[in-house]
């Protein structure tokens, strides 16, 4: 997978956190401000804050603005959340409404608050 192709991205500011070895590098691919995308972003932020405090970095990528990334990163479904790091790559598609499934998908144990 082309994990090195980060250069072409206009990343939004990292939402949170300092970097450690097991920092999750997450990207959320959306296509414009569609309701599904907005819901997904809201859900994701909530999950990150609740379960991944300080352990993640998030980029939101709008494919309407950078369509070539869809090919480079093999995005088909929208919205798609990609865990680029740590390897292997994980993809979670959908509006991320099921927190448990998202956590399983990201392969992180939920941390007690």
């Amino acid at each position, binding site marked *: 997978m082309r994990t090195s192709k980060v250069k072409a991205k206009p990343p939004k500011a990292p939402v949170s956190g300092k970097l450690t070895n097991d920092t999750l590098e997450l990207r959320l691919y959306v296509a414009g401000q569609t309701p599904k995308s907005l819901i*997904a972003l809201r859900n994701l932020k909530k999950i990150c804050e609740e379960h991944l405090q300080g352990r993640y970095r998030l980029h939101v990528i709008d*494919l309407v603005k950078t369509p070539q990334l869809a090919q480079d990163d*093999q995005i088909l*479904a929208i919205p798609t959340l990609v865990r680029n790091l740590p390897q292997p790559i994980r993809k*979670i*598609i*959908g*509006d991320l409404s099921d927190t448990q499934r998202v956590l399983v998908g990201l392969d992180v144990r939920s941390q007690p608050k």
Partner: protein
Amino acid sequence: MARASKRTNTAAAPRALPQLKKAPSGIAGFDEITGGGVPAGRPTIVCGGPGCGKTMFAMEFLIRGATEFGEPGVLMTFEETSEEMSRNVESLGFNLPSLLDQKKLFLDYVRIEPSEIQETGEYDLEGLFVRLQHAVESVGAKRVVLDTMEAIFSGFANVGMLRAEIRRLFRWLKDRGLTTVITAERGEGTLTRYGLEEYVSDCVVSLDHRVNDQISTRRMRIVKYRGSSHGTDEYPFLIDAKGFSVSPLSSIRLDHKVSKDRISSGIKDLDVMLEGRGFFTGSSILVSGTSGSGKSTLAAHFANETCRSGKRVLFIAFEESSAQVTRNMRSVGINLDQYIKKGLLHFRAWRPTQHGLEMHLLRVHDLVNEFKPQVVIVDPITNLVSANLNEVHAMLMRLLDFLKDRHITAMFTTLTANRGAEEQTEVGISSLTDTWILLRDLELNGERNRCLYVLKSRGMAHSNQIREFVLSRTGVRLLPAYVGAGTVYTGSARVAQEARERAEALREQQQLEEKRKEFSAKRNLLESQIAALRSELSSDEAAVARLTRQRNERQHRVALDREEMGKIRGVTPANQVVNS
């Protein structure tokens, strides 16, 4: 349909008839059956089982569109990577990387890895649209190929969403006027496994790959073509070094141009049996006979004569190699080598089992187009007979049609299986051919002799004789027709019969001699009798003359006596009364 096919190259030209606009696929034969290609600006589904050539069809449509019709294309492949695709089409002589560099094509490999993907909540396939849009825009594409897009069904669980998105995708493609080919796997009892044909209602092409007796045949059928007439048959097709080619079963019309020109068979006596001038050019000749009856020799004669007059011959041998044929023909005084060297005779020998009928047909097509012969000889066609006679029949009909269309004289030899059924060729193509020469062996008196017979020859007053022929060092020689009474004799029986006839003639001669002598004796006798009678007649005539003279003398004397008497009695001659 034929009229429509002419439109292929001028698809953009305005037409009086409001016809569906078509985009030429560039695939040999396909544009002919569909009357111009796939519907322009609409999606077409190409479905079939694995290995039937769907991807090849789609690729050729795309690449030919980009290279020959100036329509850039987008290839979205769901199964094979760009490198694999390049390699696949490389064998057909297409250079995919160079087309990509020239921005004539855009390739997007959509990788779907179900194990990587977790679904939570609602989503759609907007990413696919984004990618497609990006691809179309970056090369200004007019054509799109989605190669086995059903693969997405394996990647996503939400089938309802997928169907809605596929429907949206086809709408999207149509709205943008993109001529699209979508390949799809055949399903159980349905055209496609996921029922894609439901969404694409414009044109559905079904490909099939079946094996009969270890020989595979690929077939194509236009299942549906909305708003256009199209051939409905199953058309055989091939994928070879030149790409995809479909061969229409037969020409639609029977309107070959005919010729009055003649072409010699190479055997003078045979020409004589055909009005003295041989075959019509552009006609088809069938030579049938049992094994060893001299079919190949007859064909070689024809080839030899045609080459001698400077014409080109394509000789396709299914039984013997080129070297073997030339060697064998040398034994009957035919030197074919010289014409092979001159390039007039093109020899092709291959095994009939080497490939399916379609391939044979296509190979002949290719050879004919390449070599442009005036005469094609196939020796023998019988070997093509596989399990399915109908297929052979159809194939030969197409071959004949093809050759006739190009005004090529065709000679086929065929082996008849057993005695008694000679008048019925195995392949049943006798009705398709114009001239049928039958060779048969007559077994008599412990020997086997060859006979030749022109069973039919359309359009000429051919001989009805059965002629014996011999293969000599100087070639085929027809013996003079035996015109005597009774049966035809061949071989030694013929010699015996001729001896008998000679004896008969001699006896007659002797009888005649005797009669002649008899007659001359009689003549002598009669002539002497005539002489005797004639002398008798002349002596009678002399007697009559003598009597007449005597009478005249007597009368004269009487007159003189009277005059004397008058003088004595003093009577002048004036008053003398003459009473006599």
